[in-house]
């Protein structure tokens, strides 16, 4: 119940190929997150899964059935949009119930499901209100509620939190995580946000320019990225990339994450000057201009006092240094 298979899906808008052959397997109950830079085709892929956009070629299989020719309402999916997309003329209750009503569900059953969903999302006090009378966070909860009452095989989220402010984002993220645990439903979630991806996902799909770069668990992507793109995309601050030739290495590029560098005032591998220091309380980000390695970022846990202009030595942890070939792939 709720598996998804995408087989060689391609999508072109006129001459522009936006999805260039996507293959993906999602098992029942999995939480899969799509990440990638803006314009890489995340939303397009989600819309193809939902049936809002026809793929140019390839198959979408939900629960063992090829749905490529099935209209969105019959695919057993529900979708939550970035802009909430609530029906402005309907109350919260009717917003949630409309899909079921269209499908001919008996009124008593609709009420029962709305009751469960609204208590799950603490929406009971607002059931008689219209969307215009709700705050952004409440609206997004209604949109999630509207998806929940449909009891879909597959939940699709397109950047559901990006219109919310930071504090609300954390709360709603938590709610989505709890929802996934309670419903045990399959969820597909598109985001720009690293933290959302790392905290929610069972499996992350990194997309770039219409192709899948790597699929794996959050820690797998962090610890063993397949290529330079994934290494740079996962982790914040971004991984440092240093030209291998400048370090006298055979690899084209050497990558090391900011948190896997140590600094010392006296000695170390790379001598550099402090350009700027960012104090975040729990950690400190130092920007060092190194003679050998160029401009790098170092992340130090806790408070570290360094004045711009001071000389420091940075040393990478050899066990956690990545070597990339000319094609960008990681060298074993």
């Amino acid at each position, binding site marked *: 119940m709720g598996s998804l298979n995408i087989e060689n899906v391609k999508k072109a808008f006129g001459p522009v190929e936006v999805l260039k052959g996507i293959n993906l397997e999602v098992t029942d109950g999995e939480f899969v997150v799509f990440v990638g830079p803006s314009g890489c085709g995340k939303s397009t892929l989600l819309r193809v899964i939902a049936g*809002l956009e026809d793929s140019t070629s390839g198959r979408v299989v939900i629960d063992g059935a090829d749905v490529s020719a099935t209209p969105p*309402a*019959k695919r057993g999916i529900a*979708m939550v949009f970035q802009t909430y997309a609530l029906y402005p003329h309907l109350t919260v209750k009717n917003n949630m119930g409309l899909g079921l009503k269209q499908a001919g569900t008996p009124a008593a059953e609709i009420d029962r499901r709305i009751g469960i969903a609204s208590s799950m999302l603490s929406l009971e006090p607002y059931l008689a209100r219209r969307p215009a009378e709700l705050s952004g966070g409440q609206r997004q909860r209604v949109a999630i509620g509207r998806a929940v009452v449909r009891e879909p095989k597959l939940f699709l989220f397109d950047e559901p939190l990006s219109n919310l402010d930071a504090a609300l984002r954390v709360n709603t993220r938590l709610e989505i995580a709890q929802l996934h645990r309670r419903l045990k439903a399959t969820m597909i979630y598109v985001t720009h946000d690293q933290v959302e991806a790392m905290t929610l996902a069972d499996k992350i799909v990194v997309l770039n320019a219409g192709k899948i770069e790597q699929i794996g668990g959050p820690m797998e992507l962090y610890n063993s990225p397949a290529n330079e793109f994934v290494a740079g995309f996962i982790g914040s601050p971004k991984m440092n990339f240093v030209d291998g030739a400048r370090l006298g290495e055979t690899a084209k590029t050497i990558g090391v994450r900011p948190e896997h560098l140590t600094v010392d005032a006296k000695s170390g591998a790379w001598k550099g000057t402090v350009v700027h220091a960012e104090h975040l309380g729990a950690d400190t980000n130092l920007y060092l201009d190194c003679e050998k390695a160029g401009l790098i970022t170092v992340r130090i846990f806790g408070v570290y006092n360094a004045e711009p202009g001071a000389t420091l030595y940075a040393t990478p942890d050899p066990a956690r240094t990545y070597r990339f070939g000319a094609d960008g792939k990681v060298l074993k």
Partner: protein
Amino acid sequence: MSTATSSLPRTIGAHAVLLTYTVIALFPVIIVIMNSFKSRAGIFGAPLAPPTPKTFDLIGYTTVIGQGDFIHYFQNSLVVTVASLFFVLLFGAMAAFALSEYRFRGNSLMGLYLALGIMIPIRLATVAILQLMVTSGLVNTLTALILVYTAQGLPLAVFILSEFMKQVSDDLKNAGRIDGLSEYTIFFRLVLPLVRPSMATVAVFTMIPIWNDLWFPLILAPSEETKTVTLGAQLFLGQFVTNWNAILAALSLAIMPVLILYVIFSRQLIRGITSGAVK
């Protein structure tokens, strides 16, 4: 409007300009209405003076109501205007939705073709239209007028409405599709309410030329049965004598229905005009 950006002299200046414009725009209308309540001697003696007890006379109105079938003409005008308006808005909105929502081959070409009518006056085709109406036996029917006015109003309606429909959130329409709404329900229940202000704008722009038109009623439907108000008022315009009292009274009466329709739409209209500025 915030008070921080408007200073007193600027406010006064703006109001002076607006008031002047209002006076200029309303002047002819006021003169017409004032003189419609005066006797013939009063009209010619002092055309700019308001009616006094001496010059006050309802002769114009009694002539209009007594002579000819003015109530009937009014009915004709109203039927033609309201029916044309209905079809222009319905078909215009549907075409605009199709053009803005669906990607199909020749989409932009079709949009251009539909908008072409804005630049080509429909009167150029009068002869052809008349031939068409004669062969289809529609001469001297209100249907003929309604058809012509619908055609006349559509280009601008499609053009304006498709711009507004493009702004309606895609997510909303997609949410409707996922909930199993048909394309018609999405159009009528989700999209139309959201573009209501622009519909009112189009309604006003469409309605006034139709109500005021003399050309097509004269050519396509000049019979007693199908006369519109503007055509009916010609009755009092003689080659040698013109019954000014009656003409002015007929014109004053003719203003009323458009005024009422305008008031109905104006609330929406004001929202439509300012909607871009506020959001």
